[in-house]
């Protein structure tokens, strides 16, 4: 990364990743040399068309799909919107009920909220203390009117991985379509749309070292789904708009790299993450790990530090050169902390005191050391300021 001076330790890979040089190199010719519109008929545009087709094969291979089942979008949010709105609207005569979970990304939750205004009914399934959806709850929630089940593969805040294959089977047993938002999961959770019973799957390039503003929706052959973006005949008439050729080429190369050795990648990242978690829990009292102890993304660590607020933690970490994220929202108008943390049963205070650290391919053991050096000090300082801190958890005052 060129930003090393300003951000020596970047641990917010769930927000976005840097782009790997080999991915940028794969994209480069499509900005300049092969700038043609893939829809044009002359031979010059053929390279652009080939680039898009190649990326489609790469995405399909990574998730066990056929290339003609992969449709490129302008990112994960568009893919989620398309999947949920498109499936709901196309199957309306069969039913008006959707089952989803309380911890979905807002791209799914707010889309479901919009559909409720259009007359659909939505069941938001609860999760257990670790953030897991019980497939039995999915079964119970399904009615004759259920047309779609949408449950994410892995959560963006706490990293909890769902029993996707089981949920997919339950949905299919009852004739409902199954969509999964796999935006955080690609490259960490092996995905096979056949084996997992997935009809619709969303993914996004910039979460696995590819470019921003490009994603894809997998649509199983034969799935009834309305179009979201109307216009020209691109993407075989399913998604209008001239293709983002360099972005698509980058996404293809990125997913190929991200899924080449998932097990090895996970082992390396999880080893660092596990040391981080162990040391933080061991060195900072009144701290909990949010999410599932084992069924979680290998790069995700999400803590709640009692007595302190997340934004303060974040800004003090930033002052010491560490980039992280929080589920706190301390502002008028939107002071509700993370819906995900609240759904796992955390109190408002604990949710406000959350910190998410998500590791990536450029992180080193030295980065973990830096966090372990800085974090106890930051929490200690804020606990010194907080009126909630019990005397036993305070550093002795030096005045």
């Amino acid at each position: 990364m060129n930003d090393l001076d300003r951000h020596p330790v970047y641990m917010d890979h769930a927000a976005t990743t840097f782009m790997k040089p080999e991915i940028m190199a794969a994209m480069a010719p499509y900005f300049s040399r092969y700038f043609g519109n893939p829809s044009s008929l002359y031979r010059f545009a053929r390279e652009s068309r080939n680039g898009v087709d190649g990326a489609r094969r790469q995405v399909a291979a990574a998730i066990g799909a056929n290339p003609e089942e992969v449709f490129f979008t302008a990112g994960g949010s568009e893919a989620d919107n398309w999947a949920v709105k498109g499936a709901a609207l196309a199957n309306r005569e069969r039913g008006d009920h959707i089952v989803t979970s309380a911890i979905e990304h807002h791209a799914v939750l707010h889309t479901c909220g919009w559909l409720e205004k259009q007359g659909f009914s939505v069941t938001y399934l609860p999760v257990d203390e670790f953030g897991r959806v019980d497939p039995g709850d999915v079964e119970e929630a399904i009615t004759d009117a259920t047309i779609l089940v949408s449950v994410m593969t892995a959560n963006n805040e706490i990293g909890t991985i769902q029993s996707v294959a089981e949920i997919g089977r339950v949905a299919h047993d009852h004739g409902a379509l199954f969509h999964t938002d796999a935006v955080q999961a690609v490259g960490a959770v092996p995905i096979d749309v056949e084996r997992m019973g997935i009809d619709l799957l969303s993914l996004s390039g910039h979460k696995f070292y590819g470019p921003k503003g490009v994603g894809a929706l997998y649509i199983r052959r034969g799935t009834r789904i309305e179009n979201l973006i109307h216009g020209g005949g691109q993407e075989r008439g399913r998604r209008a708009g001239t293709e983002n050729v360099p972005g698509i080429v980058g996404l293809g190369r990125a997913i190929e790299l991200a899924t080449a050795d998932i097990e090895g990648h996970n082992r390396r990242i999880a080893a660092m993450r596990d040391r981080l978690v162990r040391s933080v829990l061991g060195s900072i009292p009144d701290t909990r790990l949010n999410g599932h102890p084992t069924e979680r993304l290998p790069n995700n660590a999400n803590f709640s530090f009692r007595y302190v607020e997340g934004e303060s933690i974040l800004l003090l970490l930033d002052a010491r050169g560490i980039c992280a994220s929080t589920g706190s929202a301390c502002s008028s108008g939107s002071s509700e902390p993370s819906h995900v943390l609240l759904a796992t049963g955390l109190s408002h205070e604990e949710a406000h005191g959350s910190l998410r650290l998500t590791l990536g391919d450029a992180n080193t053991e030295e980065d973990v050391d830096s966090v372990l050096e800085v974090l106890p000090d930051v929490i200690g300082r804020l606990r010194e300021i907080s009126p909630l801190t019990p005397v036993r958890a305070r550093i002795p005052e030096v005045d």
Partner: protein
Amino acid sequence: MYTEKVIAEFTNPENVGEIADADGVGEVGSPTCGDIMKIYLKVEEDRIIDARFRTFGCAAAIASSSMATRMIRGMTLSDAWELSNADVVDALGGLPEAKVHCSVLARDAIRAAINDCRTRRGLEPRETGSSRCGGGTGCGSCPENG
């Protein structure tokens, strides 16, 4: 999103702590809102000779507490009562719109501490004209605003 003054005040706050023999203590906010501010006053006759705070909350809340306690040190109780949240915002070189409620909390905590001081002296508390977290800030978490 914050001015350099806010960041400086937040990273190096003044007046953190308690006053063991305080003449007035005011606490506002709640963990639900994500902000709790507690202000301690030491008063000689009618003048604030020491002001300290403890705050649970975001950078704006901590910076507002620090700035507000600095501003009221040496003030008379009636002058400190008149300190407005806009005075605190100005002293911080501005706050983002969504964070202005933190400066309201600081004003309310000071008024609560002054009223506590008045009550201890056998005086009637003054009308604060605010709900417990500043009110009307659109926070949504408080039943008063819900």
